[in-house]
Each structure stands twice: as structure tokens, then as C-alpha cells.
């Protein structure tokens, strides 16, 4: 498809040539713009990737800590504390807000964790034993949930950006490697065809002129013969007439002479 000589199938005329040139200008401009967009996206992409790596490295520790603090809480307040907690939960304390972010025209979903403030009934859980461990467990889980939300945010942005980046890059590459060469090929093809046409026309004109001269020469010769046959006294006048004809040899040898001369057959 992107083979060396691929081109659009168009009639090779001057109008099409103009159109093609316009298209080439458009393609070049589009290519430059898309390239910029792709660069912006790549920058953001790298940045997000960096953050994801940082967060993920921290996540292991935080999650481990959270899970272990649960163990500590259960250790000091007994198995049954789980049920107490389940039963006391009414509404979520952490909510995730969704939004949209815009990077170089690409819409990226954005999540943010929001801790809803307010007194919870949980404060007194484990009053008899293990309350402190429960609170610290709660804190470390809140921390890990916040981290998870931040990670989810980054990961979603990452995936969305990745897709957008792929599309943009594909477009950039398509413009660069397919569309632009094709237009260029077409333009050079049209130019070539036009030149060819011109040369053909020129050759044809030359041929016509030559024929004409041949015919004229033959007529002159025939007339001379006739004159000679009629009377030898008029020979001198006939020879004078012959000199009036354009110099054939010189005309055929020089191209420019054709253009300099006036001929009824030449239209333009």
C-alpha cells in the first residue's frame, strides 16, 4: 500500500494538480499538529507511569501494614468484633468522586476519594477491649483505600491515554508514511504526464509543419516543371518565386524557429 509508486487515480490535469498541491499543504499542517498532540500525550503518559510506579512500590507496604493491623485488632478485641463492626456500618465514610480531565483534547476520567467527615458510631467500638487497635486499623485502612483510589485514577488515565496515544500515533504515521507520499507521488505523476503531453504536442506540431513544407516544396517543384514545360522564358521568374518560400533546412534544424514563425495551423 505504501509502496513506492502508489498514487491516487486522478486525471492528470492542471486543475487536479492544483487540488493535489492544496491537499499536500493540508496534510503537512495536520501532521505537524498531530505530532505536537502526540508529544503532549506522551509526556503526560510518562508522568503518569512514573507516578504509578511510585504508588505501586508504596502500596505493598501500606497494604501489608493495613492487613496486619487488622490482625492486631482481632487479636486484642476478639473474633466477634468483626460482626459488631459489620452491623454498625450504615453509610460509607469514603466516597469516590468521578470527574473529567482534559489533556490535549483527550478526556481522561478522574477519581478522587473523599472522606466524609462527621461523627461515626464506631468511636466507641471495642470500648471494653481493643478499641485503640480498632482505631489504628481503621486509620491504616483509610490510608490504603485512598491509595487504591489514587492508583485506580492513575491506571484509568493510563489506559485511556494509551489508547488515545495509539490512535494519534497511528494518524501521525499514516499521514507521514502513506498520505503524504501518495499525494507527492500523484503530484509528480501529474507533472510527468503534463510534460509528456506537452512533448507530444510539440512533436505533432513539428510533424505537421514538416508535412506542410514537404507539400509546398512538391507543389513548387511541380509548378516549375509545368512552367518549364510551357515556356523556358519564364524560368527566371519561377526561380525568383522559389526564393520567396521560407528556408526549410534552417527551420527544421532549430526548434525556436518554429515558435518564431507564424503558421496558420498553429492555434496557440
Amino acid at each position, binding site marked *: 500500500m505504501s509502496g513506492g509508486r502508489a498514487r491516487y487515480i486522478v486525471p492528470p490535469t492542471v486543475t487536479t494538480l492544483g487540488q493535489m498541491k492544496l491537499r499536500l499543504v493540508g496534510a503537512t499542517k495536520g501532521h505537524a499538529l498531530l505530532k505536537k498532540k502526540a508529544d503532549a500525550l506522551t509526556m503526560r503518559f510518562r508522568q503518569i507511569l512514573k507516578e504509578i510506579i511510585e504508588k505501586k512500590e508504596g502500596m505493598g507496604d501500606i497494604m501489608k501494614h493495613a492487613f496486619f493491623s487488622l490482625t492486631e485488632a482481632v487479636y486484642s478485641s476478639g473474633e*466477634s468484633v468483626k460482626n459488631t463492626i459489620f452491623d454498625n456500618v450504615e453509610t460509607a465514610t469514603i466516597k469516590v468522586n468521578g470527574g473529567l480531565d482534559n489533556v490535549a483534547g483527550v478526556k481522561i476520567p478522574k477519581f478522587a476519594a473523599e472522606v466524609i467527615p462527621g461523627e461515626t458510631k464506631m468511636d466507641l467500638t471495642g470500648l471494653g477491649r481493643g478499641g*485503640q487497635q480498632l482505631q489504628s486499623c481503621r486509620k491504616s485502612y483509610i490510608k490504603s483505600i485512598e491509595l487504591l483510589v489514587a492508583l485506580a485514577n492513575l491506571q484509568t488515565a493510563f489506559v485511556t491515554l494509551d489508547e488515545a496515544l495509539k490512535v494519534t500515533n497511528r494518524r501521525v504515521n499514516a499521514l507521514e508514511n502513506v498520505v503524504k507520499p501518495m499525494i507527492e507521488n500523484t503530484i509528480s505523476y501529474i507533472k510527468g504526464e503534463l510534460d509528456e503531453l506537452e512533448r507530444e504536442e510539440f512533436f505533432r506540431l513539428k510533424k505537421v509543419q514538416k508535412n506542410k513544407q514537404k507539400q509546398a516544396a512538391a507543389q513548387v517543384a511541380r509548378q516549375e516543371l509545368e512552367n518549364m514545360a510551357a515556356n523556358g522564358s519564364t524560368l527566371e521568374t519561377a526561380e525568383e518565386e522559389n526564393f520567396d518560400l521560407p528556408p526549410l533546412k534552417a527551420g527544421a534544424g532549430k526548434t525556436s524557429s518554429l515558435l518564431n514563425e507564424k503558421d496558420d495551423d498553429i492555434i496557440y
Partner: protein
Amino acid sequence: MWGFEMLTYNIQDGFLEAVVRGHRSGLLTVADYNNLCQCESLEDIKLNLTATDYGTYLSNEASPLYTTTIVEKCTKKLVDDWVKMRANADEKLGQFLDYCTYGHMIDNVVLIVTGTLHERDVQELLDKCHPLGMFDSIATLAVASNMRELYRLVLVDTPLAPYFSENLSHEDLDEMNIEIMRNTLYKAYLDDFAHFCESLGGTTGEVMGDLLAFETDRRALNITLNSIGTELTREDRKKLYSNFGLLYPHGHNELAQAEDFDQIRAAMEKVPAYASIFSKLGFGESQMLDKLLYEEEVKRCVMCFEQQFHYTPFYAYMKLREQEIRNIMWISECVAQDQKARITDGIVYTF
């Protein structure tokens, strides 16, 4: 019969005391714990436990194994032991054994009540109840839609009824924070239990008195510690302390006023028995306190086996088993979560 239990004790309770002492020797030893600490996976733990009293309970467990399964099976062992002993106990001892389980019963009632208020399935709630705290009418707890009905229809028939009627008014039943209710009930229970032990007299009264005093003081300490920074007022806090124990009454006054850990510490250190616990703690550290208190409890429980002809070993056996299950849970969690470095932080060695 003060001091003369040895004459008559064995007539009725000698067999069960032998049984409970048998169970006691089945508790895990330091060597067992050391083996458990070496384990690399829960399967290894199961293998190690198979060689102990838990063997029959765990041997048929299929993989994959979870900590909760192990804990559940170990609890089942305790429950089975307990039920057998309860079935063989005569009147006085039976009553004593029942008293030991009231704590779980309170937890279960509170669990069902909160569950019902949040419209959860009764069967699901019953599954979550601690088996030691079961009583006949527990399933009917869920029929009541509000606390007043609950008391009128169900709780009056349970052993917990006096705790409700003496300490909570009808208004309280409707409005009270469930945790405060739980702790109020627990306070009433401990008071009642201590009273009962006193009425039994003899060695039982003496030794149980010590253990319960420790239990109630620990509760007071925990309540104080856990209520710092919450909306619980000082008066309310003081109402949750039991009316006996080494801290009663002056220590309680001080605890009720305490605003941070150092004040609690100052209040506790005035009692010589607890000063030694706090001297092991660094300044401002409250994380290790739980473990130190558990250790103290275990020490006291182990000591009560030194004397004979009294009921305390049954109570102590329950406490020790529960601590052992906590230990196993801790070890399993440490192994499962790959936190071997912390493994010694939670084990309280029994023997």
C-alpha cells in the same frame, strides 16, 4: 465449709476437676509454640497442631486452609470440652460454669440486637454467635422490633434479665449506644459473678475473687484508654467501672478523670500489683499493653491450678484456651501474611 472443701469436694466435683486438669495438660507448651513459629505455611501449622489435642479437629480439614478455619476448629475443641463438662456438672459447679459463659452470652445478645435493628437475617446472625454464649431462646431474640419489646418478650427469660432490669431503663434501651449498653451489661455481669463467687466461699471465693478483680481492673483500664478522645463523658465512663477490684473506689475516680495515657499510668501504678506491669512498658507506649495484660492474666490463671478443691480451674481453663486460640490465630496470621518478624509480639506462653 470454709477450709474444709477437701472433705467433701471430691464427692461431687472430683471427677470434673480431674477432667479439667487433664485438659490443662493438653494446652500447648513452649516447645509446641516454637515448632509453630518455624512453620512456613498454614499447612505446616495444621501438621504441627495435628500432633496436639487439636488433632482430631483439624486433621480432616481440606486445603486451602485459612486462619479463620483453624481458629474456628480450635474454638470447637474448647466448646466441646466445655459442653461435656457442663453436662457432667452438678448444681453448684453447673451454675459456676454457666456464669463463666455469660460474657459470651452478652456479646451474642448485643450482636443479635444490633443485627435485628439493621434488619439482618436471623440465621446468618446465629451463625456468627459464639457457641459458648448460646441459650435456648436466642433465636427468638430477633422477633422483637424494638428494645422494649425485646426485653419484655425474650430477655426476661434469659439469665441476663436482671442485668437488663437493674441497670437499664426503658428509655436507655431505645437510645443507648450499643457499645455502652454492652459494657454496662458486662459491668453488671462481673459484679454479679463476683458476688456469686463470694457466696460460694472457700478457696473458690478467694482465688476467683483475685481473678475477677484483675479482670475488672483490666476492663476499667481498657475502657479509660479507649474512651480518650471520644464523646463519652467522665461520669458515663465511671458508670462503666465495676464496683469491686483493686482499683475500686479511689483508682476509679482517678481513671475517670484521666485524659491521657500518662495519667492512666499514674493512676494504675498506685496499685502495687499493676505497677510491675507498667514498669515493663516504655514511656508513652500503649501498644504493648494488651500483651502484657494478657501475660498477667495467663500467669494468674496458671497459678490457680496450684490449689485443689475449688472451681477456679474451670474458669482458668477457659481463659487459657481462649488465649491459646488467640496465639494460634496470631501465629497463623503472621505466617500467612509473611510477617515473621512480628511473630513473638503476640504469643503469650502458657507454660
